[in-house]
């Protein structure tokens, strides 16, 4: 969303988030953008570019200052080591399953203390070391100018040909994305704080009003397209307005979501309907977390009956391995898994046609998931996965369409909700 800062209000008119600022403000927006002289005009820079309350702005400034400080700390440590003629290095916390712990009491994934030392004088790491510093430099620039960039923009910002060679600093966006995630954990600052956002993915509709960067969004009137969930869903950007919904129904992909939206499911059942285009991005997860934590809404997930659907649920519920350091801000330990269940084939009397045979990869992945500590102690889940494996097939949410076009919205989900028939 921050890609289009055109919609920003020029002044602090969005101070009262309840006021309707909408379309009118957008026109007035781009009146004056102080060409921030980068050095000490941090304050004004941010001020002009962003909406939000005074408190929010102050908060942001504080965060930005801290981020810059951390980046500079990283740079200084490298310089210090170099000048001492020691091997310069950057310590990056390990982001892999080996360094992820499952906190049983909080039911969250947490990152362990393991770190990987990235040094310049190691052939395999030399380039990454350089890239880390380039990205750090780019982010510092970005934060100080008070602007934001997409991941792709960040890639271009640090991209150039190394002097005297034909080699480019990055071989593709993949490289810069990974380095950025490394930088996040290395200086313990979130991507949002580094002013970088991802491509938008995910949609929302339902009985709620939100203020996105000061603009009031009425999610009851989003037509067929729905509200595109922004990449950054921090309270400083996205605020909740009036909300009548009783719960949130999160579905796996937009095709299913469209079915629910067209049937006005959120209206008839007074809920919020979200979708994450498969594995939900950070924005969607952060939003779900906040809906649950701040508004106390229970989250129900309607996902495919396959290992990937199960893992999506797992990510929503206790966080992902890759971003374990953000679990606390993103996970929804209370999220419930509504379906599709492996016994739905019998219970809903589905035809043979909906069966999709499990392949070897599916089986391996299913066994892997069942072995994760956060699934291992879940009796129902063990049963569920086992049953899927003995069935030998998987099912998509769309398989319910074979019963009736609106079977899923009119029968399946309402019945399950009523019967509280879900797994936790």
């Amino acid at each position, binding site marked *: 969303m921050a890609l289009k800062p055109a919609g920003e209000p020029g002044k602090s008119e969005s101070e009262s988030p309840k006021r309707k600022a909408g379309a009118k403000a957008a026109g007035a927006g781009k009146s004056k953008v102080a060409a921030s002289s980068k050095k000490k005009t941090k304050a004004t820079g941010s001020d002009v570019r962003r909406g939000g309350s005074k408190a929010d702005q102050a908060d942001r400034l504080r965060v930005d200052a801290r981020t810059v400080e951390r980046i500079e700390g990283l740079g*200084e440590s*490298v310089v210090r080591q170099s000048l001492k003629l020691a091997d310069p290095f950057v310590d990056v916390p390990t982001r892999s399953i080996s360094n992820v712990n499952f906190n049983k009491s909080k039911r969250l994934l947490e990152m362990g203390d393991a770190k990987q030392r990235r040094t*310049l004088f190691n052939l395999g790491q*030399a380039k990454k070391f*350089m890239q880390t510093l380039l990205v750090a*430099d780019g982010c510092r620039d970005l934060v100080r100018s008070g602007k934001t960039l997409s991941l792709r923009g960040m890639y271009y910002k640090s991209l150039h040909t*190394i002097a005297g*060679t034909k080699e480019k600093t990055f071989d593709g966006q993949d490289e810069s994305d990974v380095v950025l995630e490394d930088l996040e954990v290395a200086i313990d600052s979130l991507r949002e704080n580094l002013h970088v956002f991802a491509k938008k993915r995910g949609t929302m509709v339902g009985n709620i009003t939100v203020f996105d960067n000061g603009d009031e969004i009425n999610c009851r009137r989003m037509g067929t397209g729905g509200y595109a969930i922004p990449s950054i869903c921090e309270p400083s950007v996205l605020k909740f307005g009036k909300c009548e919904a009783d719960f949130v129904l999160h579905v796996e992909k937009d095709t299913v979501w469209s079915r629910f939206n067209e049937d006005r499911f959120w209206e008839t059942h007074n809920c919020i309907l979200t979708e994450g285009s498969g594995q939900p991005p950070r924005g969607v997860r952060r939003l779900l977390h906040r809906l649950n934590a701040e508004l106390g809404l229970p989250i129900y997930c309607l996902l495919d009956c396959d290992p990937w659907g199960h893992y999506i649920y797992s990510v929503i519920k206790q966080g992902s391995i890759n971003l374990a350091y953000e679990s606390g801000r993103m996970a929804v330990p209370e999220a419930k898994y509504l379906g599709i269940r492996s016994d739905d084939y019998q219970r809903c009397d589905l035809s043979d046609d909906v069966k999709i045979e499990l392949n070897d990869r599916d089986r391996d992945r299913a066994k892997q998931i069942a072995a994760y500590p956060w699934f291992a102690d879940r009796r129902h889940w063990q049963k569920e996965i086992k049953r899927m494996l003995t069935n030998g097939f998987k099912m998509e949410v769309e398989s319910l369409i074979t019963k009736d076009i609106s079977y899923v919205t009119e029968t399946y989900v309402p019945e399950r909700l009523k019967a509280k028939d879900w797994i936790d």
Partner: protein
Amino acid sequence: MPSTVTQPTPPKKSSGKIGSRATAEEMASKQREISVSEFFAKNRHLLGFDNPRKALLTTVKEAVDNALDACEEGGILPDICVELLQIAETRFKVTIRDNGPGIVRKQIENIFGKLLYGSKFHRMKMSRGQQGIGISAAGMYGLMTTGKPVLIISKTSRRKPAHEVLLKMDTARNRAEVISETEHAEDDVLFAEGHGTQVTIELEGRYQKGRASVDEYLEQTAIANPHARFTYVTPANEQIEYPRAVDELPPEAKEIKPHPKGIELGTLIQMLERTERTQLGAFFKEDFCRVGPRVAKQICAHADLTDRTWIKQVGHTQAEALYQGIQAAKIMSPPTDCLVPIGTKAMLAGLLKEVRAEFFAASTRPAAVYRGNPFQIEVGIAYGGNLPGDELGRVIRFANRVPLLYQQSACCSFKAVIEAGWRNYGLQQARGSLPSGPVVVMIHMASTWVPFTSESKEAIADYDEIRKEMRLALQECGRKLGTYLRRRQKMRRESERRNVFTRYIGEISMACQRITGSDAGGIRDALEAIASRKTAEADQQLDDEGRVVDDGGRLAVDDSVIIIDATKDGPEAGVEAEQVAESLFASDSPPMKTRGKILKKAGKKTGKKTIKKTGKKVGQKKRTNTTGSNG
């Protein structure tokens, strides 16, 4: 068949016999002995006269091999002159003259006119020639293709007259006819040293340079025979000189008796029939090598006989039991002092001279035995330098110092090279083919009897024992090459590593400057200092006057390895190779005993130079200055 063509003979005449076919008596009148000369005249490809080009080479080769053998046997340092005179497009007059002991008059016809006549067939001694076919066959080929007889001039001593004989082969009787004969005065100056032989053969041939040419043959012969001097007059009337590098002959190969394990039952029976001994014990002890009284008794006991048994009483069954006894007995391997290997140093020098490479290694295996014949394998490897890198490697083969130029793929050595597993040593090798890359492999087999696949002596037969020895020798050299290549690889990696670091250092120092405000120059200097410290290894080896120098590794103390600066090119590299070759023998010479003084000559004429000498005894390696890097 159409009926018009069928035999007109009336079908029913008598007892089922068909008409005018031959009777046994008629057939008998046509049955007669085939002279060996006739056989080979018809099958000349067996002797290496398949085509004009090969015929020319084979003629030169047979004559030179004979000359070398004769000189060495006579204890004379060979001085051999080869002259190719082109008479017509495909007609050549080949003259080979040596300074050997000469041939007495009455043997001239036999030696040059009779196939399978020679001194070498019946003895167990390492020599180039074996069967006594070669030179006579060449003469026969010449006669058949041009009709011209063979001209032989030979002089045995200053005090005796030289005989000039024109010989014509009678293939039907395997004999030579003397066409004319001249006796020169005793004080003629035909041979500078007063003795020698000269043979001139006119033949149909084709001269071509390159692979398997007369030039290549002489070049390789010179490598393997550093004690000989060759003068070669090419068809273009150019004179090429291959100077002598060592002024002492290789030790004379000793003649040995057959080894019991090397004979077959038939041979044993034959030997029993022909022996002059009367009792078994003496027979085994005297007619075989490596049989002492104890072993003789053991063999006899196996056949329920004693060493006192009269040989006349030994029948077929007993002979067979004796044969079993031989197989069962533990008998020492045949003596190996009958073998004269070229020696690692001489091989290195030879390769250095011929091949522009950067790495040379050689190894000599201990002697081994196949079918009772002792043999010894030597291998040399040259790698890198100016050798073509994108082709298959080259194998040069020698048997008793004679280069083998044809039928490479039929040769045992070729198979051994293929199965040596070069990938372990850092070379590329496709399945079932030679290693590829800039590599030349030299294999020499020295033996009292080299098992050739045919009379033309082009390929060594594939005996398991021989192939195994070859493989081991190749692998021994291969390991040295592998060590070298790995080290070179490491060096390259190190300097690449440094490149990688320095490439990124600029970016890093700039980024640091932007982030922290510290001076980029200072950071860069510091990082570069660390980088060169980290990659010091690359420095070490590139320093020292910019040469690639052997460091304290295993190769440095190995005198069977030579490494030449590969970065040099052209004449400079040649000079260095020469210096290295010199230092091979010029340095402290205890290993050489006093046997070989070094004679260094610079053949000015065509820029060919030879510096070498044979390493005489196996295992007599000593360290010398091998790197040659201090020039």
